[in-house]
């Protein structure tokens, strides 16, 4: 009886795992196979003559190269640096000075950022960026992303700051450093790993987001890869699948690499729940 139950449980478990694995892997199959297929279409088949021609086509396309290696890079790196910087300074201050309601402050921010979100938030944000004269500018995209990512970044950074002992800062002050020297030489070096986590998280978020650049950018030479993927059409108006498939794979690689890095260095759980 026990043996039967054991066998049934094993079979049930294996079936469940097989179904889950298939359900989550099969949709990705096209992304892995099509880029190497000489006649890639939307249907999936094993490339019988594997080729790198599709990648060559990407690198021959100046618009594609610019979107991926220049525009996406500027916007993701820009928002990464700005978010990390602003969040680090703000979180440090929140952890070290006494403000009435500072503990509630971060929670209220998180709450607010999940209320002012998505395409609903883009309605006033678009008009704001329009007024600031930043439509179709990298800076506009960077600022809007930073504003959106900041609450969560602050939240994580503040947790991190509170775990740092105060004695280093105190001894720096005792030894005659002023507050800015203490910040530069003691605090920032100690928070490097927290900044790294926030930075990667911000980069991956901006790199993969579609809506904000889609709404704020107009001209092809400013588009990041996210929106550029949707502009590879023939003159007849059909998408150029060979080019798109190789491009999509190239576009995904930085996220894959960063995921593997984070997983190896911190374990992914740390990421859990903070991706918005």
């Amino acid at each position: 009886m026990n043996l039967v139950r054991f066998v049934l449980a094993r079979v049930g478990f294996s079936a469940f795992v097989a179904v889950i694995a298939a359900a989550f892997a099969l949709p990705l199959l096209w992304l892995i196979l099509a880029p190497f297929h000489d006649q890639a279409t939307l249907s999936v088949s094993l490339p019988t003559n594997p080729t790198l021609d599709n990648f060559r086509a990407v690198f021959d396309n100046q618009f594609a190269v610019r979107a991926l290696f220049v525009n996406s890079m500027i916007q993701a790196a820009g928002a990464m640096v700005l978010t990390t910087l602003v969040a680090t300074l703000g979180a440090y201050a929140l952890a070290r000075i006494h403000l009435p309601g500072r503990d509630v402050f971060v929670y209220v921010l998180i709450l607010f950022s999940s209320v002012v979100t998505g395409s609903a938030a883009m309605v006033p944000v678009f008009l704001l960026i329009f007024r600031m004269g930043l439509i179709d500018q990298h800076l506009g995209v960077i600022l809007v992303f930073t504003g959106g990512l900041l609450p969560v970044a602050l939240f994580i950074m503040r947790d991190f700051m509170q775990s740092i002992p105060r004695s280093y800062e105190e001894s720096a002050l005792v030894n005659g450093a002023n507050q800015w020297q203490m910040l530069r030489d003691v605090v920032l070096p100690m928070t490097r790993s927290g900044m790294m986590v926030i930075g990667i998280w911000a980069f991956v978020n901006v790199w993969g987001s579609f809506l904000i650049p889609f709404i704020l950018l107009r001209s092809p030479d400013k588009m990041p890869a996210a929106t550029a993927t949707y502009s590879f059409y023939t003159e007849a108006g059909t998408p150029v699948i060979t080019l798109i498939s190789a491009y999509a794979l190239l576009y995904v690689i930085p996220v894959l690499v960063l995921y593997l890095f984070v997983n190896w260095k911190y374990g992914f759980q740390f990421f859990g729940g903070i991706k918005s």
Partner: protein
Amino acid sequence: MPSTHQDSTILTRRTGLTLLAPTFAFIGLFLLFPFVWVVAISFTDRTLLGAAAADPQFIGLDNFRQLFDFDSWMRSGEFGRSLVLTVYFVIASLIGQVFLGLGIALAFHRRKGFLRETIFTLVTLAWILPEAAIAFTWTSFLDPNGTLNTALGAVGLTRPDWLLDAPMASIVMFNVWRGTAFSMLLFSAALGNVRPSYLETADVLGANAWQRFRDVLLPMIKAQLATALILVTLWTFNVFTPFLLTQGGPAFQTDIMAIHTYRIAFRYFEFGQGSAIAVIVMLINFVLAGVYLFALKRGEGAR
């Protein structure tokens, strides 16, 4: 030592506020101001171009009256219809994501090794890979000759043209696939904190799998269950990504709220109308976030 004393020895209030200034600037400009401004615009007839752009007129509640015009609001492509579609979309996605996430977390509870790593990596990648690339690979997956139909055909099932024949089912499937990782990671972390001795006691008492789940595991993950239910609802309500699969179509069948808002404001450039929708959406978000805070607080009180 009281913390206020320690605080003041390290950072003066003035330096602290200087460090916080950029934070306040960003929050004020990109969170608070849009929130207030969108309410103001919703009372006007503002458009992007033309006379109403330069000099928008105050029209009171007209935009809202139009949204809730009960004669027409359920027509396809209208606000009420979009609300209904969004409710379907959110409930179906919610059930799918939370059950699947919980199922995977339970199946791999107290297991380690290659199989677990593989499944967790796959599910997590589905969550974090860029949406534009994912949308293309899903368009291929759902293609009449795509992988899904090949798999269905192999076991003798029908092969629909998913995005045309069952667009809502398609974006629900897509969204469940995309978002399950959150519930999975949340529940699996919570289950990791269950003391082995509890489960051993249950085994000694001869509990079956269901009893073990109901009496030992479920009480330990109640808080996470509430978190997942509310946050997934909030996120799904605002998600725009299905646009990349269906553009809200065919015939507005997947015109969920985020896509509807986009269409009114950025395709038709009706900013007054779009702002009214945005106000309603943010109000709903506000209620959901409030429920979440309330649940969090009650959870803390109970502990």
